[in-house]
């Protein structure tokens, strides 16, 4: 199934390049959705069904819809007329290349690839899917971080409500 890996990896990469290259913000947003879908497919190929599906549900299905919604309310033509910023592009590619070199160096020196990752036994059957495993881990071993994240999100929600109320006055 390496053929599928290359297909979806290419999809994710083309989407990523499309986000940067496209001048039209709507096209850029769609390229980003394409990239997310490719990424989700890669997760699913690794048997991480839950992560892959959540990638689609949260990023492609919810966050990008809001992005697109905002973009469409803007004036798209104005963005398209903008000149290509050469200095920014050069700076951006410089940072990207530096990061790639850093990543390559770290991966070359690390021992991760040598030993091989331990195989997870995801046996079929009731109560033994990746969803069950992730759920058990989250609510037993990682219960404290989960509660903290929940409170953080609640604070953010309350903050958003308070801020929007203030503007109404």
């Amino acid at each position, binding site marked *: 199934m390496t053929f599928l890996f290359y297909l979806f990896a290419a999809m994710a990469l083309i989407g990523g390049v499309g986000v940067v290259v496209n001048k039209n913000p709507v096209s850029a947003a769609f390229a980003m959705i394409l990239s997310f879908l490719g990424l989700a497919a890669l997760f699913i190929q690794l048997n991480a*069904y839950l992560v892959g599906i*959540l990638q689609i549900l949260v990023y492609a*299905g*919810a966050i990008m819809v809001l992005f697109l*919604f905002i973009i469409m309310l803007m004036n798209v033509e104005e963005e398209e007329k903008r000149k290509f910023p050469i200095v920014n592009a050069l700076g951006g590619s410089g940072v990207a290349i530096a990061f790639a070199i850093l990543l390559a160096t770290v991966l070359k020196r690390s021992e991760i690839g040598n030993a091989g990752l331990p195989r997870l036994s995801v046996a079929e059957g009731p*109560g033994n899917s990746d*969803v069950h495993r992730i759920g058990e881990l989250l609510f037993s071993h990682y219960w404290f971080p989960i509660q903290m994240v929940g409170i953080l999100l609640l604070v953010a929600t309350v903050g958003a409500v308070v801020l929007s109320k203030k503007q109404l006055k």
Partner: protein
Amino acid sequence: MDWHLIIAATIKIVVFVFLTTLPLVAMSVWAERRVSAAIQDRVGPNRVGPFGLLQAVADGIKFLLKEDFTPNHVRKGYFWLAPALVMVPALLTCAVIPFGSKLFGEKMVIADLNVGPLFVFAIASLSVYGIVLAGWASNSKYPFLGGVRSTSQMISYEISLGLSIVPLIMIYGELNLGRIVQYQADNGWALLPLWGEGLSVQGWVLTIPVFVSFVIFMTSMFAETNRLPFDLPECETELVAGYHTEYSSMKFALFFLGEYAAMIIGSGLAVTLFLGGWSLPFGWLSPENTEAAVPWWHGLIHIGVYFSKVIVLILFFIVVRWTLPRFRYDQLMRLGWVFFFEIALFNVVLTAALLWWFNKPVS
């Protein structure tokens, strides 16, 4: 490569999606027109074939032969992409719904995923792109307003839709739709616990949150599929025809069929989660577990039972459409955010408390 798996999956995709669901879409359009005619004391389409049954074929030919007109002021690429983006997610969600137990040793589900309901919600949430794009690419007032309305409506109701099935998943302890149906075949349907372990105080008390879930689920489904009483995105009196005002011919038909396909898949999911999927009541003819062998005629009966239940729900969708008047937009948003969201959240807590109470370890 495992050719046996690929061939079996291809046959299931062709038969279930293209030879059953798509004709069912066409037939539900016919049913919609006949039922609405009966409700309004008219006759309805009865000229083409017996009882007008071939009306769907005539409609299809009409849509294919009409001029496919693209207005000059639209954004071409996205204008062409939008109808496909409505239709494709609706058909993709067919993949995880079990439409029968087993036939000749093959499980009657295209992809036996362990994240069934999540997959359906994830893919269905992509169908909003088609409508947003149609509204934006049409580049005129009414479609744009329709697209904006539709987006906010679908995002709002997706939340209560997702939350409404959490109590059920807690009761089943399972996200695999095949095993959910098997559980209901053994222990009573979620809404009708009359046999197996469902015949207990716990089973009966739990029908209260399940029933609340069912009401929220079905109502949110109406909003998600943009059907009356929640068809604000294409409200004729205010927006001409909403997001598909600029579309004609087959592209318009794709929007139309996408709506019906989403309705059929929604009915399929409701049947699977609440009404026991392919299983007959009282566990008649049901296999002992998901791996047990099933005689071929039992398999055929199960497929028939699944589709009968889906058709009953489709008729329910149609009758509601022709019974209730359209909501106002602020009422729609109020219902979604102020009532359903809170009730669904409370329902989750209630179910958790009930499950804890009944399964509390005896000290």
